[in-house]
């Protein structure tokens, strides 16, 4: 029984928090002045964003001839960045929707920030294909609206158009999901702040929420529908559709049926790493140590390890099928990936995505945050290179040797990519400053999840054994802060003896 095992579990939230304490802790960073650290990070992000804006302005004025593309390599840096950012976003939905379905209570500490990350990452992703259109001011042409050009419609058979629908739906649904989750917390902040512009904004956006149970009843149903019925299939569909951009083509290295699951696993892998990177920073700078415990990082790094193996299996499958298909173009494409002129990018990808995560087999590394931090950054680099490898190395040696070419990004492309990080971190820092990074209403609901007095039978043999086991393990390793759970359990032997 799960309940009998609870004393062995570390509490999700450390420090014996009461709901009132949660409100105080989570609201603290939003009250008063920003810390110098926040300002430093914000200014760096803002400057990077400025560089990006300058680069984007320049390339829109001059044209995408400012990029390093050529007739052979028509997609490279931009689409790599696009897929990279969309992938990052997926972990947010995984955490908020799929883990909600799986009743993973630890998600409550991370879901708000992860959902925000999704939104900002999808915004960053959108920049690249829009610029790549060449005339971004006509980007609205991708929408099928009645027009005076015939009406001339979009081509619904094209995966690029499916992408438009998938990404925009994903952005809208993620935004709704995030906002609906925020409403009770905005109400908490509204009642906490007494005056000021901030209070008026919280008040405006909290929609008059007063915590009434009849609204909670509907709210919970809506949250479940959004998570289970909509966001979960949506997140799986979005990266599948992104992978169709490649899989429906005839280019060797792209034309494979393994792409949808491979892309989804890779997306969750990279997104999870990004969540961990961000949460380590947030934990440190915003003093959230009690809410983001080592247990959270332990679980998340295990997920990273699992998805790393899914990605590894996909790499192996691709190579096996290339060999087994007997198709010489396919075989050449993969040998070229591993041993051709761009092999360096392939091996960066393999070492970052397969070798580095293997350290997470060890509990010690999973719980040493500096190690986790560095490893997740490597994984993000690796996952960026995965997309680069798929896109660029498949294109640069096509069917006609006379058109073989190479690719190097220009300064403009590098500046645009850096700018997308600037945008991402600027948005994220503003979010940390003005909105609760931790879903208070959800955290409050799981505070007592390791202790429900009236449901835990006081006399219970299994629980007694567990008590014994607990005192044994307590000597062996650093098990948690004894919460109220430990106190009530210690009583139970006495109760049985009387």
């Amino acid at each position, binding site marked *: 029984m799960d309940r009998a095992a609870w004393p062995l579990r570390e509490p999700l939230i450390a420090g014996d928090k009461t709901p009132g304490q949660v409100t105080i802790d989570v609201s603290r960073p939003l009250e008063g002045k920003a810390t110098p650290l926040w300002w430093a990070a914000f200014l760096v992000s803002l400057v990077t964003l400025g560089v990006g804006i300058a680069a984007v302005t320049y390339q829109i004025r001059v044209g995408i001839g400012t990029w390093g593309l050529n007739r052979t390599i028509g997609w490279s840096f931009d689409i790599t960045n696009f897929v990279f950012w969309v992938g990052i976003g997926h972990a947010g939905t995984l955490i908020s929707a799929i883990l909600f379905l799986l009743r993973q209570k630890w998600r409550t500490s991370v879901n708000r920030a992860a959902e925000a990350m999704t939104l900002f990452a999808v915004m960053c992703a959108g920049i690249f294909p829009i610029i790549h259109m060449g005339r971004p001011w006509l980007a609205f042409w991708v929408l099928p609206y009645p027009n005076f050009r015939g009406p001339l419609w979009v081509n*619904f058979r094209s995966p690029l158009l*499916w992408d438009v629908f998938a990404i925009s739906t994903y952005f809208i649904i993620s935004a709704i999901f995030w906002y609906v989750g925020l409403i009770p917390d905005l109400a908490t902040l509204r*009642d906490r702040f007494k005056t000021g512009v901030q209070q008026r904004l919280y008040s405006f956006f909290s929609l008059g929420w*007063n915590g009434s*149970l009849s609204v909670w009843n509907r709210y919970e*149903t809506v949250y479940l*529908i959004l998570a289970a019925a909509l966001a979960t299939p949506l997140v799986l569909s979005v990266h599948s559709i992104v992978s169709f951009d490649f899989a429906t083509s005839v280019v060797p290295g792209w034309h494979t049926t393994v792409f949808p699951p491979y892309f989804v696993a890779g997306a969750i892998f990279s997104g999870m790493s990004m969540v961990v990177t961000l949460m380590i920073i947030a934990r440190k700078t915003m003093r959230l140590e009690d809410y983001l415990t080592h247990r959270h990082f332990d679980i998340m790094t295990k997920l990273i390890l699992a998805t790393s193996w899914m990605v590894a299996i996909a790499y192996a499958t691709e190579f096996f099928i290339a060999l087994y298909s007997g198709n010489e173009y396919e075989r050449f494409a993969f040998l070229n990936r591993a041993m051709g002129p761009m092999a360096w990018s392939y091996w960066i990808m393999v070492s970052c995505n397969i070798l580095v995560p293997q350290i997470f087999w060890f509990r010690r590394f999973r719980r040493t945050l500096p190690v986790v931090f560095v490893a997740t950054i490597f994984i993000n680099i690796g996952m960026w290179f995965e997309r680069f490898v798929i896109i660029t190395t498949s294109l640069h040696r096509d069917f006609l040797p006379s058109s073989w070419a190479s690719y190097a990004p220009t300064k403009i492309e590098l500046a645009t990519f850096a700018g997308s990080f600037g945008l991402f971190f600027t948005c994220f820092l503003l979010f940390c400053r003005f909105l609760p990074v931790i879903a208070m209403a959800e955290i409050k609901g799981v505070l007592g999840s390791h202790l429900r007095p009236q449901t835990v039978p006081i006399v219970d043999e299994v629980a007694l054994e567990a008590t014994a086991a607990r005192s044994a393990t307590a000597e062996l390793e650093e098990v948690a802060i004894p919460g109220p759970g430990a106190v009530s359990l210690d009583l139970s032997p006495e109760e049985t003896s009387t």
Partner: protein
Amino acid sequence: MSDRQQVSIYSGEEEVLSAVVELRAAGFRILEVFAPYAVHGLERAAGLRRSRIGLITVTAATIGSLAFYFFQDWVAAISWPVNIGGKPYSSAPAWIPVVFETGVLAAGLATVLALFVRSRLYPGKRARLIDPRVTDDRFAVVLEIPDSGFDVERAREICARHGAESVEETAVPESGKKPRKPHVSSLEVWR
């Protein structure tokens, strides 16, 4: 519908849950419960039925999907047929990704809109709070005090036994919407 109510405040989810269960069993009518977070089982204990918003989700998803299926067919086969790679004008399998996405989009928008409309949540609405702490860490149970037959002492005793921090009888605040069907929706007074 009486104009008096009894408000009891609790500081923990276990307390409020057990108080609600016993108050209902003792025959008191619960007008509303206020909670800072969703407590598992509290809705059923207070006698609320499962929300039927899911029906709206299903309807909107069906409409969104079908509309875009036929729209794509109409665009590609009727409005301006273009021969693309010799594929049939009505290429049903190619419509599926967009059909799925528009179904999800319509369902999501409709569901959240239904939540807002049904719960009368709208931007800038002034919150009617029974206690400023119910969005922080306190729970409040509001009992109806009918014109006759309300055993104040009994109600107070039950609330106190389940750990109520305070119990008081007050007037139902003004300007609440008059419930259309008092026997079903007296809860609405607190929206």
